[in-house]
């Protein structure tokens, strides 16, 4: 049976993981390579890297790091941040990424999804949507959640899947950072309109939130989080053990 995926997300700026972390066995807590290796050895099913660099030099550094990660870590790697053209896809795929996540780039130019899907296959294109309730309506936000695009989120996500996105990362701005659980209501709406894998993001505060997520939404495929793993509040090993005990199918080896 297919397993539920647990995915840590690493934000990288100028070649360093942003957010401070402290784990036993890691000498350099902001080294993307050491951290990726740590997560991979501890049961992460996939890794997401967001490049939040703005400079050309930073971007070059990110590519070098990605290449090194991909040469040592043999689990799927998704890369996002600053993906605006098919050439950007090409750049990160050549460094060893398996999937590429688009957000603002697809809002500016939705054809980016269809062009990339045609060239690299649907499985390679991930639509990442930052969604927030505004007057009771789900709206898509751009620029890292700062700008309301005015677009209705469910129709936007459905459109992206029709254009060829093979996976959806749904980040609820409403639950993000609150640490009181994933946005079950928003996720359940998205799950009912698309038939591609959906990854929940935003709101994980502890193991219980993951149990809730997979129990309440049996069709959700994965849970993504950053801070609870980075700050060591939850280890992926413990999380998976607890999920397993609760009858949720996870990869333990």
């Amino acid at each position, binding site marked *: *049976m*297919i*397993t539920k*995926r647990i995915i840590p997300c690493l934000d990288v700026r100028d070649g360093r993981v942003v957010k401070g972390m402290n784990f036993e066995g890691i000498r350099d807590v902001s080294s993307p390579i050491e951290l990726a290796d740590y997560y*991979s050895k501890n049961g992460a*099913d996939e890794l997401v890297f967001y490049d939040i660099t703005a400079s050309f030099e930073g971007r070059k550094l990110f590519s070098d790091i990605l*290449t090194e990660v*991909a*040469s*040592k870590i*043999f*689990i*799927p790697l998704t890369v996002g941040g600053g993906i605006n053209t098919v050439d950007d896809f090409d750049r990160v*795929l*050549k*460094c*060893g990424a*398996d999937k590429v996540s688009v957000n603002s780039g697809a809002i500016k130019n939705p054809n980016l999804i269809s062009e990339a899907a045609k060239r690299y*296959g*649907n*499985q390679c294109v991930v639509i990442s949507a930052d969604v927030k309730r505004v007057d009771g309506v789900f709206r898509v936000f751009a620029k890292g959640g700062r700008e309301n695009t005015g677009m209705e989120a469910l129709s936007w996500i459905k459109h992206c899947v029709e254009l060829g996105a*093979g*996976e959806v990362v749904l980040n609820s701005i409403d639950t993000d950072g609150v640490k009181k659980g994933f946005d079950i209501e928003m996720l359940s709406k998205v799950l009912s309109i698309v*038939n*591609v*894998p959906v990854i929940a993001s935003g709101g994980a505060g502890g193991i219980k939130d993951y149990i809730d997520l997979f129990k309440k939404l049996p*069709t959700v*495929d*994965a849970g993504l989080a950053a801070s609870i793993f980075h700050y060591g509040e939850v280890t992926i090993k413990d999380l998976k053990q607890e999920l397993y005990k609760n009858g949720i199918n996870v*990869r333990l*080896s």
Partner: protein
Amino acid sequence: MIAIVDYGVGNLFSLKSSFKMIGEKAIVTSDKSVIEKADKIILPGVGAFGDAAEKLRQSGLDKVIISEAEKGKDIMGICLGMQLLFEKSYEYGEHNGLGLIKGEIVPMEGRLDKDLKIPHIGWNGLHFKKDSHLLKYINENDCVYFVHSYFGIHCEDSLVATAEYGEEVTAIVQKDNIMGCQFHPEKSGNIGLLILKAFCEGK
């Protein structure tokens, strides 16, 4: 030396790196003489079956692979590479494969439970169907990483392992020196590396 056949499809970086990780020399190549000299051959692939089969034919690498297979050299197809070893595929039309494994490739859509998501993406457990040296370092239910929308059927003769996704989906095939994995061993963590190690060591 392992020859990873480069016929212009897909990203071979991780595959090459994974052999390096297990201490095997692997060369990404489209050079016929290198493939002929290699101890073993890897046929990779992502994308559409028809395009890939056509590229293999145009480059003449199909004949090289078939003749090496006939000489008894170990060959492993990965993902679309495994599918190319089959006789035929029904992905967007009907296309001939290399015919080294008996069976055909069909879409999941319309065959599996309609509630199941397609592609089949993620980590799924292996169920062993018959003995193979590829399994010597791994155990029943060990998980590997799949990404595919088409799968092999009518390959009972060579079926080594399956994964459960609505029904039993072909995961590993082997007919003598011809082997194939539907999943990506180079993306399946330690389990994947152990399968590649077993392949390199041979029977």
